[in-house]
Structures are given as C-alpha cells and as structure tokens.
C-alpha cells in the first residue's frame, strides 16, 4: 500500500508516518503543501491520501477537489484543526472519506488508518 501524506508541518508528517508505520505501511510519499500534493498525486499511483486542510500553495480542500475532478476514487483522509461541523460537512461534500480533528489521541489516528489499511 502506498500513501500520500500532505501537511505543511514536518512534525505532523512525522506523527502521521509513525502511525502509518505502526499499521505496517512503509511506502509513503510526502508533500509539504497543497501544490506539491497535487503534483505528487499526478506522478505516482497511491492507495490513500492523508491531507491537512490549512496549507500554503493550495489548501487541503483544493487538493481534495482537484483529485476528485480527475475522477479518482482514491480514499482521502483529512486530518486538520478545522473542527467546526460546517467544515466537516464541506470536506465530506468535496469528497473526503474520513476526517479527524486535531488534537487527537494517537490510538484514534491508528484506528482510523487501520480501517483504510485493512480494506
């Protein structure tokens, strides 16, 4: 399984990658902003996209919309500080499959990743 992890925070990418590793996923592509995420998505085939919302050079929501505009049905898991219900609805309407608001328990992150990994 290959996963694209997009977050402008290097620390947050490390936290997510550690959780992915704990779930047995080691084939990971990193992106530090939204534009890089779109570019990496176009360059390589991935089985899961994990993205932040607030990023420079295209937001995570832009990333979701652009991926869905290609016709891709790849699962997208958004991990963000945007916790308002209106934001969650907006993300799901754009094509997000699962959503986790920061701060989060590491166990919950791994539990959610496992749902994608075990499919």
């Amino acid at each position, binding site marked *: 399984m290959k996963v694209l992890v997009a977050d*402008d*925070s*290097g*620390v*947050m990418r*490390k*936290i997510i990658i*550690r959780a992915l590793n704990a779930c047995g996923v080691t084939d990971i592509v990193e992106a530090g902003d939204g534009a890089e995420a779109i570019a990496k998505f176009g360059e390589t085939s991935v089985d899961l996209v994990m993205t932040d919302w*607030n*990023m*420079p050079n295209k937001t995570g929501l832009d990333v979701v919309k652009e991926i869905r505009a290609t016709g891709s049905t790849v699962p997208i898991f958004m991990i*963000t*500080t*945007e*916790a*308002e*219900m*209106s934001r969650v609805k907006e993300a799901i309407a754009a094509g997000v499959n699962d959503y986790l*608001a*920061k*701060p*989060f*328990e590491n166990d919950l992150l791994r539990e959610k990743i496992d749902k994608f990994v075990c499919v």
Partner: protein
Amino acid sequence: MKAEYINPFVSAAVEVFSTMLQCELTRGKLTIGNGSQPTMDISGIIGLSGRASGTVVLSLDRAVALSATEILLSQKCESIDGDVIDAVGELTNMVAGRAKAGLEHLAMSLALPTVITGKNHVISFGSVTQTLAIPFTCEWGGVVLEVGLVESPEQAVESAIAASAAMA
C-alpha cells in the same frame, strides 16, 4: 476584547496539551495583555479573520518547547531547532483551531502559523487591539497564551442587540 472570548482558547490550550502531550496545564490569573512575554523563549503566532479578527500567541519556556517536541516526535531534543519551531507552530495552530470551533458564530479562518524565537522577545499586537493573557504552569515550565480579537462592525451590532435582548 470580550472576556468571554478567551475561554475557548483556554480550554483549547488545556485540551491540546493534555491530548497531544499528556501534560496538565495549571491556569494562572487572567491579565490585560501588553503584547510582551519577556521571560519566554519561543512563541507561535497565528492570525484569525472573519466576523472577528485578531491574533493568538502561544509562548513557551525553552524547556516546555523541547519537552513538547520530544513527546510529539518520540526523540530527544536538546536545542531549539527546526523540529521545535515546527512543533510550536503546530501546537499554536491546534489551540487556535480548536478555540475557533467554540466560537463558530464568528466564522473565523486561520492563517498559517509563524514562530519567533529568542530570549525576551516582545510581540506587538498594535495599539488598537486590547489583549487578554493567561499564564499556565506545567511540569516542564511556563506557558503564556495571549489573545487579541476585535469583532467586525456587523458582529459588534449583533452582539449589542443580543446583550440588549438579554437585559430586557
């Protein structure tokens, strides 16, 4: 700045430290802020805009910043490096994000965080923004949360009408 607007930020800071760092924050006394955190070593700053706009500053002692990064990354941190700066920015982002969810009627958006380092640094909020500051202590040292929010003219009118209705 309305005093009630500080509460979601205080709750958010306590929740972020508890959930992400397994660290209990003990709240100190609320003060009118002046934009200076003279004993702090590193500050995360993030702007908010919407029906209210302003700035959130999370300032940490060096030991708090290093310990927080160690917990987040599960690796030893001995100096304020890129990882520590990034971690403080992310913690500030989480505090502001969680707080704005508690102030949903203000429909605020987050800017990207900025981090300032250096002993005795001072952050100016501008003369028009009154800020409120809350000091915290934890097992690693001190933390100060300072928030300055100004309602938009439209929101200020709605707040005044709501206050009048509550008094009637």
